[in-house]
């Protein structure tokens, strides 16, 4: 597509007009204004962490409120940006660790001598680290919430939504990596059983291992469900009206505020303790009888039912 750059002409006019103006102003204000571009330049590292591929934006140390002819004056951001930077940094760290985790998964799946316990340990610790990073970020995300329809609060809310999307995507990616790994691992373990002659010993061991694997699955699914529920009010559903720019120009203030109230409630519930006292459906009973006791799984089921129950209501037309 064609474009036309008018900056050159613009600058020409601007300079011409400046030279017409300066004789009048320089005598009056030469004492007051400092020389432009004279101050040292601080590199503002934090603005770039949101997108690490960007180059740094140098800042002038002059007060951006004053006139600053010729110097680029992106001012110091407000305090809450530190929080968003922190979260963004955590997200980035989580991404790096995910890459390491992928390598660890691959290594653990390769045939090797030794019992593979070291590999397992690494995997477990990485997984826990990532999960902690994500959970910590999610909690910090709440700090970005702001009330009142000011422009700054709109910016905060949008930053929050963007980070929420990143967090949710990372959580899902973690879950996917883990499920692929566990599936392959299970295939390997079962494969070994068929071939190995010391059936009994290995049989018992593999049963216990399978249990461990189940626990891991339950735990990771649990985590993901929790994160998804918490973030669902913030993450934008693509293709819907909420994802329209024109809709957002009018509506950011109200919708996100509602969502944040919900988020608050959820976090409170999680922190005060598990809710295991109410049985929500017959499915819970069925599950108790069908499989071996699995308290984590039952808890997950209840939570999921509560989480998703609204979506099961579908009007029959």
């Amino acid at each position: 597509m064609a474009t036309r750059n008018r900056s050159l002409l613009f600058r020409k006019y601007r300079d011409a007009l400046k030279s017409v103006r300066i004789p009048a102003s320089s005598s009056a204000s030469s004492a007051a204004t400092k020389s432009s571009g004279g101050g040292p330049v601080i590199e503002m590292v934090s603005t770039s962490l949101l997108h690490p591929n960007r180059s740094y934006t140098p800042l002038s140390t002059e007060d951006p409120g004053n006139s600053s002819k010729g110097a680029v004056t992106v001012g110091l951001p407000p305090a809450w940006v530190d929080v968003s930077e922190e979260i963004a940094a955590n997200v980035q760290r989580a991404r790096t660790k995910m890459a390491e985790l992928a390598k660890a998964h691959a290594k653990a799946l390769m045939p090797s001598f030794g019992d593979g316990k070291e590999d397992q340990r690494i995997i477990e610790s990485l997984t826990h680290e990532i999960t902690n990073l994500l959970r910590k970020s999610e909690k910090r995300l709440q700090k970005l919430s702001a009330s009142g329809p000011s422009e700054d609060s709109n910016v905060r809310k949008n930053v929050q939504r963007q980070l929420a999307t990143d967090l949710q995507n990372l959580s899902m990616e973690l879950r996917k990596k883990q499920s692929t790994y566990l599936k392959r691992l299970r295939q390997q373990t079962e494969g070994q059983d068929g071939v190995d002659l010391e059936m009994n010993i290995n049989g018992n061991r593999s049963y216990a291992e399978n249990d461990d694997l189940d626990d891991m699955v339950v735990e990771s699914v649990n985590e993901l469900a929790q994160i998804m529920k918490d973030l669902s009010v913030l993450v934008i559903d693509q293709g819907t009206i909420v994802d329209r720019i024109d809709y957002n120009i009018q509506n950011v203030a109200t919708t996100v505020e509602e969502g944040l109230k919900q988020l608050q409630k959820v976090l409170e519930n999680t922190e005060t303790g598990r809710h295991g006292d109410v049985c929500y459906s017959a499915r819970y009973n069925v599950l108790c009888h069908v499989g071996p006791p699995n308290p984590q799984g039952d808890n997950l089921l209840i939570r999921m039912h509560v989480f998703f129950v609204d979506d099961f209501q579908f009007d029959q037309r």
Partner: protein
Amino acid sequence: MVLVSAVRDYVYRMLQDISGMKVLILDSQTVSIVSVVYSQSELLQKEVFLVELIDSISKSKESMSHLKAVYFLRPTSENIQYMRRQLSNPRFGEYHLFFSNMLKDTQIHLLADSDEQEVVQQVQEFYADFISVDPYHFTLNMPSNHYYILPAVVDPSNLQHFCDRAVDGIGAVFLALKRRPIIRYSRASDIAKRIAHETAKLMYQQESGLFDFRRMEMSPLLLIVDRRDDPVTPLLNQWTYQAMVHELIGIQDNKVDLRSIGKFPKDQQEVVLSSEQDAFFKANMYENFGDIGMNIKRMVDDFQQVAKSNQNIQTIEDMAKFVDNYPEYRKMHGNVSKHVTLVTEMSKIVEERKLMLVSETEQDLACNGGQVAAFEAVTNLLNNESVSDIDRLRLVMLYALRYEKESPVQLMQLFNKLASRSAKYKPGLVQFLLKQAGADKRTGDLYGNRDFLNIARNMARGLKGVENVYTQHQPLLFQTMESIIKGRLRDVDYPYVGNHFQQGRPQEVVIFIIGGTTYEESRSVAQLNASNSGIRFIIGGTAVLNSKRFLKDLEEAQGIARSNANVV
């Protein structure tokens, strides 16, 4: 596709090279231009954390110097004034100015004069000056569309604005396509001739450097036509999905506002209908109502299956699968609800207004012969209590357009009956329409009865029997496009501007309808494009019409014409 991706590319390029947190400032026109091709989540990914309109951002005094401002505006004098004020008291760290069309030197001068703080980093022209609602369909969304109906003497300055906006929009389309067309226009329409000549002047004289693109073998064709050549299409009721939603409810910038027709839960009050983002809509937007019903039922059944299996969670693996697939499921749920709601509401309206009955007669009036039967049918419907005022008006108009020359007595009877039955009817509107768009004023063969070949074609269609009586009608545009494909668009009807004559068929054709396009016409375009004729068609207009909008334009024009006559 090409127009949508051109605008997307423009937006992408505006944001790509500016690092850090940004605020995007738009005006009331550019917000539509951007919103139909770019989503909020895509903006967030580009670190645009605030989007505002230029008039509301002027009101705030909050300093936000940590944000870089990206302005995307139409180069109107009003916007330049806003910019001047904002530049003299800059709130943001950097200013990057993008305009959707050509700036005059004086405007650049004014901006430079206000930029004492030298916060402006760049000033660019990015020619996204049109709203690309569908791959081959754009609109200029002009608020005062009715000026095309009035003769030039009535309101010359507003008419000039109207023409300027049209020329700017058409120019931008070709700059986005990087082509310079040969130009033809509808013989009988003064305004088409005017816009055609002004566009030619822009492209070949005033800014000939800017439009001087690498020439292909064949230049594309720009055909400028007048809505009044085919006043029937916007008056007809529609039965294919996209056109029907616009006719019965209304689509604006690919959004449907359901609040005008009833009470809905918050997340269903406004919905998006975009072929780019909704696969079901893309597959069904041109299907007729009966088929849509079936396809939606199938979609609901599929969804129920998924929902049921989600309820049947027994193993840990089931749980895992559920959680992993939850975002997909949620999206599916939203989409199914949206389409079910739309079709349900439309069914209600069809039932209330007895539209199947009305539409059968409409289609007969538009397509088949038989004045006597037509008169009887229209009279009966006028007498029917359930038929609404707007439908009565449309029927009489369609009858009048078809049979204006035959049996004037019966026509008069219908006018009187209409006036007596419809309290809100503005008397003389039908006559006004005839004066504007009657047989004498139209180019082309609207009813296919002027041209021997067309008569034969009509007879053949009648004999074949029609697949669906409600979708018999084909807009005049379809015939025009077929003529272009066959290389048989007559110069007598559609003369060339200046010495633009070109032998052979063009490969790209842009048809601009002054007064507005309809979704029925964009459907024809899409169908022809899919048929591999060797030509790619694009249509655009000053607005996207439904019968309500078309009638409103007529009424406004009539009002102005009346008061003007009184003054004179």
